[in-house]
C-alpha cells in the first residue's frame, strides 16, 4: 500500500472503483460540506473535493476535505498549480497528510480569467502562479512519498503518503498526442487517473486502446469521468464550450425529446430531463466500465450530489465494497 | 509660447533639394525644373510656375512656342502612352501669369563698375545680357537689325512666334536696365576695338545670320533667293522678290519656315526639294506635318544640279536622283544617280541649305579663326583667342536650337563674371553632374493611370496658311490642368532622412509602386517613385519628406486656413481637403463655412494635418478625393479612408463625434459639391 487509502484498497481488490465529487461552498460555514458529505457517504469509495474550481474562491480543498473526512467520507483532495508555488504546495501537502488526507489529485487548474463568468466577478486580475505544472506536481508528491525528500532536496522527517492522482482529457487536441501525455503523467508518478467527462464512448475506447498499448493501464488505474447531464442545454454547452468534451448528437436529441414531452410545464421538463440524464449516466457508466484498462468511474453530479445515490444503485455499483 | 520652439521646428519648411534629374530636365539644355513647373500648373499656381521657368530661361516665351522640346522626347510617359505636352503647358503658364510677370519687372541696381558689350541679341546674347545684368553689371547689346531678338525676330515666322510673345522676353531683359543699340553693325557702325575700349569685356553672340548659297549654274540673278534675307524681308513687310510658283531647296526647319512663309505671302504653289528621304529629313516631324497640312509638297531624294533660266526668269530646277545621303561612317556624303534626272518647274527658288556667319568685323583683332573658318575658342572658358573677348551661341557651336544657344549664353555670362572677378574660369564653370533618373521600370509603367495626351489645337490649315497668325490655339484652363496632371513627377517624389529611419518597413508596405528599398534603412528609388505622397504621412519616425512639396505646409498654414471661428457661429467650420481636380473647379461653389485646403492628391493628408485643424478650432474636416477610377495612383482612396477612420478614433476621447470626419469619393459627373455641403452640415458646432 502506498497510502492505505480506501480508494487504493478498493482498486487493489480488483473491484471497479467509484469516486464522486463534492463542491465546497463560498462560505465560512462548514454546514454545506457536512450536508454534501452525508449525501455521498457510502455511495462512493472516495469523493473529490474541488480546489477553487474555475478559479472561484470557495473553502479550500484541504479544509473541506478534513470536514468531509470527519463525517466519514474519504476525500480526494485536489491541488491546482494556479494558486500556489512549490513551497506552499509542499507545506500544504505536509499539513494535509498530518490531517489524515490520503488521496491527492494534481491538476493545472483553470486560468483565473474563468472566474469572471455569469454573475460572478471573480478575480480575473489575480497573478497566477504556475510555478510547476500538474505533471511536475505529481513528481513532487512521489518524491516526497517515496524518497522522503522535498523538491529542492531537503529531507522530510515523516514522509506524506499520498495516493497520487492526475487528470486526463482523452478527447483533447492534439488527440493523437494525448495517450503519450498520459504516459508522462504515469511516469511522473500518477497512481490513478480521472478523466474529463466522457459522452462519446467510441473516442474514449480508441484512446484507451492506445493507452493499453503504451503499457499505461498496468501502472495506473484509469477511472472514466462521467458528468451527469441535467438538461439538453447543459449537454449542448458541454459540447460547444468545454474543451475536450464532445457529445454525440443522439444524446442531445434524447434530452431534447425529454424536454419537449413536458410541453410548457417547466417543472415537469426539469424532472423529465433529469430522469433522462440519470438514465444516460447509468448507460455511460456501464459502457465505460466495459472498456479494457478502465478500473472505475468518476461520477460528477455538479451541485447535484443528491443524485449520486440513485445513479450508483441503478448502475449496480451499490453497495460499495468494504475493504 | 514655447521656449524651446519644438513645435515650430516640427512645422518648419521642409523641401529638400532634388538629388536627381529626370530625363526631361536632363534633356533640357538649361536643365529647367520641368517637374516643378508642371506640378505648379496642375495646382493652379501659374505665377510660381512662371518663376520656376524664368529662373533659368530668359527666352521663356519664345521657347514656349518654338522650342523643339527635347524634354517631351525624353518624357517617361513615352513608355506608357504619350509624353506630357510640356511646351504648350509652359506657354499656358506664361500667358496666364502675364500681369504678374510685367509687375515684377524692375531695374537691377548696377553694383559693379564694369560693363560688358554683347554683340547680337539672339537667344545666347539675350541670355548673357540677362545674367550679367542680374549680377549687377552694366550691359549694352549691339544688334545689327532694327529689332532685338536675332533669328527669333527676323527669321522665325510670326505664325510660330508672335511679336507679342517675343516682346515679353525682350522687355524682361531690357527692364533690368540693359542698354541696347539697334541698326548697329559691328565693323561698320562701330568697331571691335571701340567696343573693347568702351567696355571691360565683349561677348560675340552674332549667331549664323547669313544663308549659304549653292555653287550651281544659274544661281546668280533674280528669282533665286536666300533663306535669311527672304525671311527678314517677310518679317519687315519688305518686297521679297518672290513669284507665284516657289521651290524651296532644303530639308531643315528653316526650309519648312521658308516654304510656309511663301504660302502666306501669296504663292500659288509651294514645294520643297531635299536630298533626304522622309525619315532622314532633319526638320522636326510636327513642322513637316503642319506644312503638309497646309499643302506644301516635299520631293525627297533629289539633288539640285542647276537653275534653269529663260533669259532672266527662272524656269525651274534641274535635279538628279540621290542614291544615298550618308556614307558608311554616317558622314554627310551624298551620292547621285546621274541618269535619273528631271526638271522641277518653278519661278522662284529659295535656297535654304544652311547658315554661316560674316567674320569681317574680326579684321585687325586678335580673335583667330580655326581651320574650318569658325572662331577659335576655348570650350572650358568660353573665351576667344583674344583676352576679354568671349563667344557664345551658334557662331561657335554650329547650328542648334534656341534653348541650346541660351545655355551657351548662361555659360558665357558666368565665364565673363569669373574673368572680371579675376577668378579661374575653367574651374568656376565646372558643373557638378546630377544623378539621372533611369527608364521607367515595366511594372511601374503598368500601374500608371492611363490618360491620353491632350493635343493643342491648330487653326484650320486651309485658312491659316494665308495669314501670319499664331497657328497654335493654346490650352484652356481645364485642359491645361488635365494635361499637367499627366506628369508623373519624376524626381519630385519622396526622400528618406536616413538618420531618422529605423527600417520599420511601413513605407514599403504602403507604396503602390514598390519604390522603397529597405536594408538597415529605407532608400526610395527615384526611378520608381511616382510622388503619390502616401508614404510621408505614414512614417512613424517622420523620416520621409517630398522633393516636390513641403510636407509641413498644410499644418503650418492651418491656423490661417481655419481663420476665426466665431463662438456664436451657426454653421460649423469644416476644413475640406480637396484634390486639386476639385479645388480648382470654378463651376462648383462652396459655402463660406467650408475652408478649402488644396492637395495634389488625398494621399498627402496627414493625421497631424487633421488634428491641427481641430486644434485650430475647426468643428470638422472632410476630404474630397477621386474614386479609384479617377485617381492618378492606385490604392489611395482605400488608404486615406483607413487614415480617416484612425483619426475618428483619436478625436473620440476629445468628445468629438465621428461625423466630424467624413470623405467623398467623387466619381465622374458626380455633384460632389452637394455631397460635401451635406456632409459638412452634419458636423456639430463645438462649444468653446
Amino acid at each position, binding site marked *: 500500500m502506498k497510502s492505505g487509502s480506501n480508494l487504493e484498497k478498493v482498486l487493489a481488490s480488483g473491484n471497479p472503483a467509484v469516486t464522486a465529487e463534492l463542491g465546497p461552498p463560498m462560505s465560512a460555514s462548514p454546514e454545506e460540506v457536512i450536508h454534501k458529505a452525508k449525501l455521498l457517504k457510502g455511495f462512493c469509495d472516495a469523493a473529490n473535493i474541488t480546489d477553487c474550481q474555475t478559479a472561484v474562491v470557495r473553502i479550500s480543498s484541504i479544509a473541506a476535505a478534513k470536514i468531509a473526512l470527519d463525517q466519514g467520507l474519504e476525500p480526494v483532495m485536489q491541488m491546482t498549480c494556479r494558486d500556489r508555488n512549490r513551497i506552499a504546495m509542499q507545506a500544504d501537502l505536509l499539513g494535509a497528510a498530518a490531517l489524515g488526507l490520503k488521496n491527492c489529485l494534481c491538476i493545472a487548474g483553470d486560468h483565473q480569467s474563468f472566474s469572471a463568468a455569469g454573475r460572478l466577478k471573480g478575480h480575473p486580475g489575480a497573478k497566477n502562479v504556475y510555478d510547476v505544472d500538474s505533471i511536475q506536481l505529481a*513528481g513532487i508528491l512521489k518524491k516526497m512519498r517515496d524518497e522522503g525528500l522535498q523538491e529542492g532536496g531537503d529531507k522530510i522527517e515523516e514522509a506524506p503518503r499520498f495516493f497520487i492522482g492526475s487528470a486526463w482529457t482523452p478527447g483533447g*487536441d492534439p488527440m493523437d498526442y494525448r495517450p503519450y*501525455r498520459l*504516459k508522462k503523467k504515469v511516469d511522473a508518478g500518477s497512481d490513478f487517473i480521472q478523466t474529463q467527462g466522457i459522452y462519446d464512448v467510441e473516442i474514449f475506447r480508441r484512446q484507451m486502446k492506445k493507452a493499453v498499448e503504451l503499457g499505461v493501464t498496468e501502472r495506473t488505474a484509469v477511472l472514466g469521468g462521467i458528468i451527469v447531464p441535467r438538461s439538453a442545454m447543459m449537454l449542448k454547452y458541454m459540447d460547444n464550450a468545454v474543451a475536450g468534451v464532445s457529445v454525440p448528437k443522439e444524446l442531445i436529441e434524447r434530452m431534447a425529446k425529454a424536454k419537449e414531452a413536458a410541453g410548457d410545464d417547466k417543472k415537469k421538463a426539469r424532472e423529465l430531463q433529469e430522469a433522462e440524464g440519470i438514465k444516460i449516466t447509468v448507460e455511460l457508466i456501464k459502457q465505460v466500465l466495459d472498456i479494457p484498462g478502465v478500473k472505475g468511474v468518476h461520477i460528477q453530479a455538479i451541485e447535484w450530489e443528491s443524485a449520486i445515490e440513485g445513479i450508483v444503485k441503478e448502475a449496480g455499483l451499490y453497495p460499495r465494497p468494504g475493504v | *509660447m514655447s521656449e524651446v520652439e519644438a513645435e515650430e521646428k516640427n512645422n518648419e519648411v521642409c523641401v529638400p533639394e532634388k538629388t536627381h534629374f529626370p530625363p526631361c530636365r536632363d534633356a533640357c539644355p538649361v536643365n529647367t525644373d520641368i517637374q516643378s513647373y508642371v506640378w505648379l500648373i496642375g495646382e493652379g499656381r501659374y505665377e510660381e510656375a512662371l518663376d520656376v521657368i524664368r529662373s533659368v530661361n530668359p527666352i521663356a516665351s519664345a521657347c514656349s512656342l518654338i522650342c523643339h522640346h527635347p524634354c517631351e522626347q525624353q518624357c517617361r510617359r513615352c513608355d506608357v502612352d504619350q509624353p506630357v505636352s510640356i511646351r504648350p503647358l509652359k506657354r499656358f503658364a506664361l500667358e496666364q501669369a502675364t500681369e504678374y510677370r510685367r509687375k515684377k519687372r524692375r531695374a537691377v541696381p548696377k553694383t559693379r563698375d564694369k560693363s560688358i558689350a554683347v554683340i547680337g541679341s539672339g537667344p545666347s546674347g539675350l541670355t548673357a545680357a540677362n545674367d550679367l545684368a542680374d549680377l549687377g553689371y552694366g550691359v549694352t547689346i549691339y544688334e545689327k537689325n532694327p529689332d532685338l531678338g536675332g533669328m527669333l525676330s527676323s527669321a522665325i515666322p510670326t505664325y510660330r512666334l508672335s511679336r507679342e510673345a517675343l516682346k515679353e522676353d525682350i522687355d524682361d531683359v531690357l527692364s533690368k536696365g540693359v542698354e541696347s543699340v539697334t541698326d548697329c553693325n559691328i565693323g561698320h557702325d562701330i568697331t571691335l576695338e571701340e567696343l573693347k575700349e568702351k567696355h571691360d569685356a565683349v561677348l560675340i553672340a552674332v549667331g549664323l545670320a547669313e544663308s549659304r548659297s549653292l555653287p550651281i549654274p544659274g544661281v546668280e540673278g533674280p528669282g533665286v533667293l536666300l533663306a535669311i534675307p527672304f525671311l527678314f524681308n517677310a518679317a519687315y513687310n519688305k518686297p521679297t522678290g518672290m513669284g507665284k510658283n516657289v521651290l524651296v531647296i532644303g530639308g531643315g526647319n528653316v526650309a519648312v519656315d521658308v516654304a510656309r512663309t511663301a504660302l502666306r505671302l501669296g504663292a500659288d504653289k509651294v514645294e520643297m526639294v531635299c536630298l533626304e528621304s522622309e525619315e532622314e529629313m532633319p526638320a522636326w516631324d510636327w513642322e513637316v506635318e503642319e506644312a503638309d497640312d497646309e499643302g506644301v509638297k516635299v520631293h525627297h531624294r533629289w539633288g539640285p544640279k542647276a537653275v534653269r533660266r529663260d533669259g532672266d526668269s527662272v524656269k525651274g530646277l534641274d535635279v538628279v536622283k540621290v542614291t544615298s545621303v550618308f556614307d558608311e561612317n554616317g558622314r554627310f556624303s551624298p551620292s547621285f544617280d546621274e541618269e535619273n534626272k528631271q526638271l522641277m518647274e518653278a519661278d522662284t527658288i529659295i535656297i535654304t541649305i544652311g547658315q554661316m556667319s560674316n567674320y569681317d568685323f574680326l579684321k585687325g583683332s586678335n580673335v583667330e579663326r580655326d581651320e574650318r573658318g569658325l572662331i577659335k575658342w576655348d570650350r572650358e572658358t568660353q573665351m576667344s583667342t583674344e583676352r576679354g573677348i568671349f563667344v557664345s551661341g551658334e557662331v561657335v557651336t554650329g547650328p542648334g536650337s534656341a534653348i541650346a544657344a541660351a545655355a551657351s549664353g548662361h555659360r558665357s555670362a558666368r565665364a565673363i563674371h569669373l574673368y572680371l572677378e579675376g577668378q579661374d574660369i575653367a574651374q568656376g564653370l565646372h558643373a557638378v553632374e546630377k544623378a539621372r533618373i533611369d527608364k521607367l521600370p515595366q511594372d511601374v509603367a503598368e500601374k500608371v493611370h492611363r490618360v491620353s495626351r491632350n493635343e493643342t489645337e491648330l487653326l484650320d490649315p486651309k485658312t491659316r496658311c494665308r495669314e501670319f497668325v499664331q497657328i497654335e490655339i493654346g490650352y484652356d484652363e481645364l485642359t491645361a490642368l488635365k494635361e499637367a496632371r499627366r506628369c508623373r513627377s519624376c524626381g519630385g517624389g519622396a526622400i528618406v532622412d536616413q*538618420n531618422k529611419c529605423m527600417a520599420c518597413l511601413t513605407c514599403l508596405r504602403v507604396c503602390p509602386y514598390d519604390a522603397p528599398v529597405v536594408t538597415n534603412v529605407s532608400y526610395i528609388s527615384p526611378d520608381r517613385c511616382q510622388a503619390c505622397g502616401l508614404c510621408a504621412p505614414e*512614417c512613424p519616425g517622420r523620416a520621409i519628406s517630398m522633393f516636390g512639396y513641403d510636407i509641413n505646409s498644410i499644418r503650418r498654414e492651418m491656423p490661417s486656413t481655419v481663420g476665426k471661428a466665431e463662438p456664436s457661429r451657426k454653421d460649423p467650420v469644416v476644413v475640406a481637403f480637396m484634390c486639386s481636380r476639385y479645388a480648382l473647379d470654378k463651376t462648383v461653389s462652396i459655402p463660406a463655412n467650408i475652408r478649402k485646403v488644396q492637395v495634389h492628391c488625398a494621399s498627402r493628408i496627414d493625421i497631424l494635418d487633421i488634428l491641427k485643424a481641430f486644434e485650430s478650432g475647426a468643428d470638422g474636416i472632410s476630404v474630397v478625393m477621386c474614386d479609384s477610377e479617377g485617381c492618378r495612383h492606385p490604392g489611395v482612396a482605400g488608404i486615406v479612408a483607413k487614415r480617416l477612420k484612425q483619426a475618428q478614433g483619436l478625436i473620440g476621447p476629445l468628445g468629438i463625434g465621428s461625423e466630424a470626419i467624413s470623405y467623398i469619393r467623387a466619381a465622374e459627373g458626380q455633384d460632389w459639391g452637394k455631397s460635401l455641403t451635406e456632409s459638412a452640415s452634419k458636423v456639430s458646432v463645438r462649444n468653446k
Partner: protein
Amino acid sequence: MIVGSQKPLDEIWEMAKGFKKVLVFGCNTCVAICHAGGDKEAQTLASLLRTRAVQEGLDMTVDSMAVQRHCEPEYFEPVMDKVRKYDMVLSTACGVGVNFLSGRIGNVHVYPGINTSFYGAVEAPGVFTELCAGCGDCILHMTGGICPVARCSKTLMNGPCGGTDKGKCEIGKEVDCAWYLIVERMKALGTLEQLAEVRPPRNWSPGTAGGPRRLTIEHLMDMEESEE
C-alpha cells in the same frame, strides 16, 4: 521588438493636466515600429493634448520632440537641456525609456505615455504578437522553437493541459495553444519523442522572479580609459 500601445487619452490627460509646459518625447526605434510612440505619434499626442487643453480652458504648452532611442544616453543627452525646460516630460518611449530618462533627467517629472506590453514580432502588417518572455533561460531547442513561457497561459513545461480547444487556448479563441503548436511542430520535425521525458520543475530565478537583471560585458566597459 518591444511592443506597446498608447495609453487612452483620458488617462494621459489626467497625468498631464496639472502641468503648464509639457513635452511629448518620442522614440524612433521599437515604439515607432509598432506605431505607438515614434515622432509621428508623439506629434499626434501633442496635438490632441493641445486641443484638449483648449477645450478645458487650460493654459498649457504642449510641444513634441523625438530622438532615435531612449535607451542609450548618447541619443538623448544632446537635447537634455531643452528637455529639462519643461515641467513634465510625457515619454512615449517604452518603459525602459521612461525609467532611464527618469534616472538621468534630475528634478523633472517623466510620465509614461504608452503601456509597454511585450517582446513581439510582426505577424502581418498591423498584427504584433508576443513571442518571448525574457525568462533568461531559453529552452526553445526543446520545444521546436515555440516558447511555453511566453505563449502558454499557464507556463506549462509538460503541456498541453486539458483546456486546448481546436488548437486554441482556453483563455480565448484568438490565442493559439502553444503546446498544440509545439507538439505539431516537433511531430513535423520528427523530434516528438523528446517530449516523452518529464521536464522537472524549472528554475525561474534567471527570469524576473529572481529580481531585476543586469548584464555586463567586460570589454565594452570603461572604453575611454583603455590604454591600447
